[in-house]
């Protein structure tokens, strides 16, 4: 008389509970709603619902001249808005076939790499919060504040800059900018070791993130996941190296790839450590740029009226969250007929339902945090 048939299971029908991790939740990184079917703690199905922050960016850009779209692109991924306007400018310049002065290219790379450091620093702070450690958040934000001050002297704004324009940049570097950035880089590197000690090697942190949400190589490519999330699964795919745009071919830096030190390749810990190492790479890039930045007039190639030639182009850019593409169709007027932004976080989020089946709720939070999504660019 085995134990099972003692309890007559037919009368007990437990169905799983639909938990609504609603648009307003402390750790959904913005207004994302997750419809989670759970039985007990274990998650059986997740359905992300997006669109709460949809601001019709693509419809607006069909009625605005090219130079007036730049502030709108900044507002898509508000955590790395330099990348957004840089990618947009590259796309428009591809269509305008104008020659960008060397100095502008160097300033743009410096500014994008600084923005990448700020965005990854933000990620480290918030990922710590998702896992429960509150102190790294404030340390990292204190250092990120320095970068924001640098951007403030350069563009006047702290978060949404409207600095990189199609054809050039709005202002040249203020005279003390280079010395001050180098001063910041020398100050920032030892700070990284501190965060590394507190978070990366912490036993509970490793317990909470290693082997969680393993994403293997070709599933990631199939879902269109790009950027640090893809590199953590072992794919060495970085647009700055594979398809070098602007002056990345002149700079030497290596691309950190997940090796699965603390668990299997492609788990949440790898996604964390890849971003952590990328900060070090970006610091290396900025130092090289400062060594060889040429003189020149920044407004040389800035057109009075941006009017690209007829036709369409798809330009790709490596933003902090992945491959950021702009598909622009123009028919000779100063207003684009169609502008589509391929947002990296959009595809990265689409892998969440696949990744978090079978894990517990606190793991869903960790996996969502490790994908580092921003709802501004998902909903556009």
């Amino acid at each position, binding site marked *: 008389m085995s134990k099972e048939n003692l309890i007559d299971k037919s009368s007990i029908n437990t169905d799983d*509970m639909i938990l609504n991790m609603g648009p307003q939740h402390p750790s959904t990184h913005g207004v994302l709603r997750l419809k989670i079917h759970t039985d007990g703690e274990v998650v059986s199905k997740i359905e992300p619902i997006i669109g709460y922050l949809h601001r019709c960016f693509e419809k607006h850009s069909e009625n605005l001249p090219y130079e007036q779209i730049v502030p709108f692109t900044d507002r898509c991924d508000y955590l790395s808005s330099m990348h957004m306007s840089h990618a947009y400018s590259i796309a428009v310049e591809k269509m305008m076939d104008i020659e960008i002065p060397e100095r502008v290219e160097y300033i743009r790379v410096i500014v994008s790499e600084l923005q990448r450091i700020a965005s990854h620093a933000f990620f480290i702070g918030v990922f710590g919060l998702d896992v429960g450690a509150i102190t790294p958040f404030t340390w990292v934000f204190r250092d990120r504040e320095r970068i924001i001050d640098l951007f403030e002297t350069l563009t006047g704004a702290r978060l949404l800059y409207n600095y990189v324009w199609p054809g050039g940049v709005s202002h040249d570097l203020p005279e003390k900018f280079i010395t001050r950035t180098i001063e910041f880089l020398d100050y920032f590197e030892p700070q990284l070791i501190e965060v590394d000690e507190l978070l990366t090697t912490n036993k509970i*942190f490793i317990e*909470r993130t290693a082997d969680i949400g393993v994403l293997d190589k070709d599933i990631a490519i199939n879902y269109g996941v790009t950027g640090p999330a893809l590199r953590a699964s072992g794919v060495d795919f970085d647009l700055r190296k594979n398809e070098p745009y602007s002056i990345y071919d002149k700079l030497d830096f290596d691309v950190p790839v997940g090796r699965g030190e603390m668990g299997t390749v492609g788990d949440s810990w790898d996604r964390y450590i890849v971003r952590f190492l990328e900060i070090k790479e970006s610091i290396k890039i900025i130092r090289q740029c400062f060594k060889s930045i040429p003189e020149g007039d920044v407004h040389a190639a800035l057109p009075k009226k941006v009017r690209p030639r007829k036709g369409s182009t798809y330009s790709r850019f490596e933003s902090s969250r992945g491959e950021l593409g702009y598909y622009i169709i123009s028919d000779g007027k100063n207003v684009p007929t169609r502008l589509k932004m391929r947002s990296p976080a959009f595809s990265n989020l689409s892998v969440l339902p696949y990744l978090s089946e079978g894990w517990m709720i*606190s793991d869903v939070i960790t996996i969502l945090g490790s994908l580092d999504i921003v709802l501004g660019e998902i909903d556009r």
Partner: protein
Amino acid sequence: MSFVDSILSSLSSLEMNYTLLLLIAVTIPGLIIFLLMTVNAIVAVYMERKISAFMQDRLGPMEVGIFGFKGGKRFWGGIGQTIADAIKLLAKEDIIPKDADKFMMILAPFIIFIASFITFVGVPLSQDFLISNFNIGILYILAMSSVGVIGIILAGWSSNNKWSLYGAMRAASQIISYEIPIAITLLLPVIISGGLDVHTIVDWQLQNRWLILHSPFTFIAFFIFFVSGIAETNRTPFDIPEAESELVAGWMTEYSGFRWSLFFLSEYTNMLIISLVASFVFLGGWGSPLTIINLLPGDYMYLDGPILGFFWLLLKAIALIFIMMWFRWTFPRLRVDQLMYLCWKVFIPFAIFNMLAVGVWEVLF
């Protein structure tokens, strides 16, 4: 001489009728405990905010002062902050969700508050500053501290919100499973000093040496007790029931105003109880640490009289509370099953092994 006995004896000379006497003998210690709890809560909250601020390179509350005196200029401002918070909480609107179980929801905070309130009765504050002198001291404290769980489950269930239900279920499993290592480790002093009563344990420690230094096994037992104590009071790294980033605020989500402050009050009281119990069981109660290192010549033994004893005990308790806060601002949060793994696979085996080893140690030495 416990507090209640002293009141009874002093008032018995007035020959009032017996029930009135009993009433007074109960209400006065009750008021003292309540006063102690509120003062402890206010000071502990201020300390926690200041310590967490300095650990995170920020300043913490700096603006609010009492009667114009803001506290230190550079770092230690904002003394009145917690008093202002307390008043705000009392004055705040007390929202009860429409389809929540109204009566249960009102009842739950009081159960939790009473649980920590009555455990205080058995906890000594110094040699004779003891509310009532039980001869089953430790057992009473252990029993009363597990009443709180009922309140938490009731709060989570009755606020009719999926998140607080999760918080309540997690709290239930966590607190019940951490009762076991605490119970086992509390048995060690009983074995060694031979009595359940608080006085026998502390007197034994004063005669020979602090229990923590007595044998390596009791040293490990202290750490197991202390860490499970943190788990008892739901503090990081075990604050899963009210994990901010997952369950918004766990079983406390639907509460606001006065009821929420009751939860807060009892959380800080539990913290105080755990550190008081740990200090008088393992760290030699009201004995002054100077006797161990006998720095001073013998005749200064009177440093641990009834008044100074109170000071030493509180000093140890505050040190332990600081360590609890220190843990909170350093460690990330454990997942529920890792928490269970730690309790059942690490603490309980070690605790049982310790008990065995202490028995053997007692026999040999």
